[in-house]
């Protein structure tokens, strides 16, 4: 009896051990895959997070510069208006003065005022071009920040799903995490290379 049951038990034990080692092997490989994908997601998240921070910083800095330039533009506009007023006053005075000395003074003042008005107009034009370029840069940074933001969120959800999937051995959750991460990565790429949606 002992001989007849002995081989059966040992066969069963061997089969269980084989199954366990097979399961263990598969599980280890899968765990390695999950770890590998989480590493990739974490690296992509780090880059996206850094790029998102830069894009948001650019929005603030460029908007500050734009505001500053507008204030400069307005200052020039006010100075131009001062010279316009001066011109008007001098033109009125020119009709009333009789002495040649006063007339020549008015003429020289008028010519200086006209020069200043022209200078301010040219400077305003150049500033307007600078402000327009800055505005376009702000828009580009806003576009980047938007897509980096979405990418970051999706990558973080991906890491979370993959990690929980690894912890509770839910392969489907890891796969869901992968989908989130891929979509997130695509959004992040769009932030870098403006693949779609750029105005």
């Amino acid at each position, binding site marked *: 009896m002992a001989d007849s049951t002995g081989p059966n038990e040992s066969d069963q034990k061997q089969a269980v051990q084989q199954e366990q080692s097979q399961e263990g092997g598969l599980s280890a490989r899968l765990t*390695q895959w999950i*770890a*590998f994908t*989480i*590493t990739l997601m*974490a*690296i992509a998240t*780090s*880059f996206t*997070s*850094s790029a998102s*921070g*830069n894009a948001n*910083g650019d929005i*603030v*800095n460029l908007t*500050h510069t734009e*505001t*500053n330039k507008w*204030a*400069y533009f307005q*200052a020039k506009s*006010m*100075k131009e208006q*001062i*010279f316009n*007023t*001066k011109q008007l*006053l*001098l033109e009125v*005075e020119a009709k009333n*003065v009789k*002495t040649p*000395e*006063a007339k020549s*003074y*008015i003429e020289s*003042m008028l010519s200086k005022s006209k020069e200043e008005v022209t200078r301010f107009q040219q400077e305003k034009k150049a500033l307007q071009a600078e402000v327009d370029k800055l505005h376009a840069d702000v828009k580009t940074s806003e576009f980047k920040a938007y897509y980096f933001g979405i990418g970051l969120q999706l990558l973080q959800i991906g890491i979370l799903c993959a990690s929980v999937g690894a912890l509770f051995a839910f392969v489907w959750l890891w796969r869901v995490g992968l989908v989130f991460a891929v979509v997130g990565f695509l959004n992040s790429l769009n932030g870098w290379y403006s693949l779609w949606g750029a105005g």
Partner: protein
Amino acid sequence: MANETKENTNPRTIDELLKSKLVQLIALTTTVFAVIAAISSAVNTNVTTESGVLTEKQNNGWSYYQAKSIKGYLYQLQADILALEDIKAESKEAKAEIAKLMAPVKQKLTTYESEKDAIKADIEKMDVRIKVLEKRSSNFGTGLLNFEIAIVLVSVGAIFSMTALWLLGLGLGLVGAAYIVNGYLAFF
């Protein structure tokens, strides 16, 4: 017998010992990286905030400069009108009256010019400081990015006992450390 029992209860081979030492080393590396990254992140926040505050102050300074400049132009306008009135004036009394009005205007013009120069010098000082802070912040940013990736690589290396991954993480961490040191001391 007693020796045999001891050996059986403590069956650690040299390989196991080395492996446990490696894991300890990896854990230590991760901890050191995490601590450096946390401190540097806090310093980077301070640097970025200082840069932002200085930029605001600089903008404020430019507005103040422009206000002085506009007032200067208005005083110049007054001076020019008074100069014309002086030419037109026929009596000595009128000329004296105009000269009385002209004196404070000229005084104001000189004051505004010197104040404008002082404001401009302050703004230029702030500009130099902002440039240094921006450079430091950029170095901290790159260093932190390296550290984040290094921590991930070292952690995964520890989980799967992959020495190569740990070494790669260690290398990346060293690069990150170089950037962070540059963030503190602004060498390059």
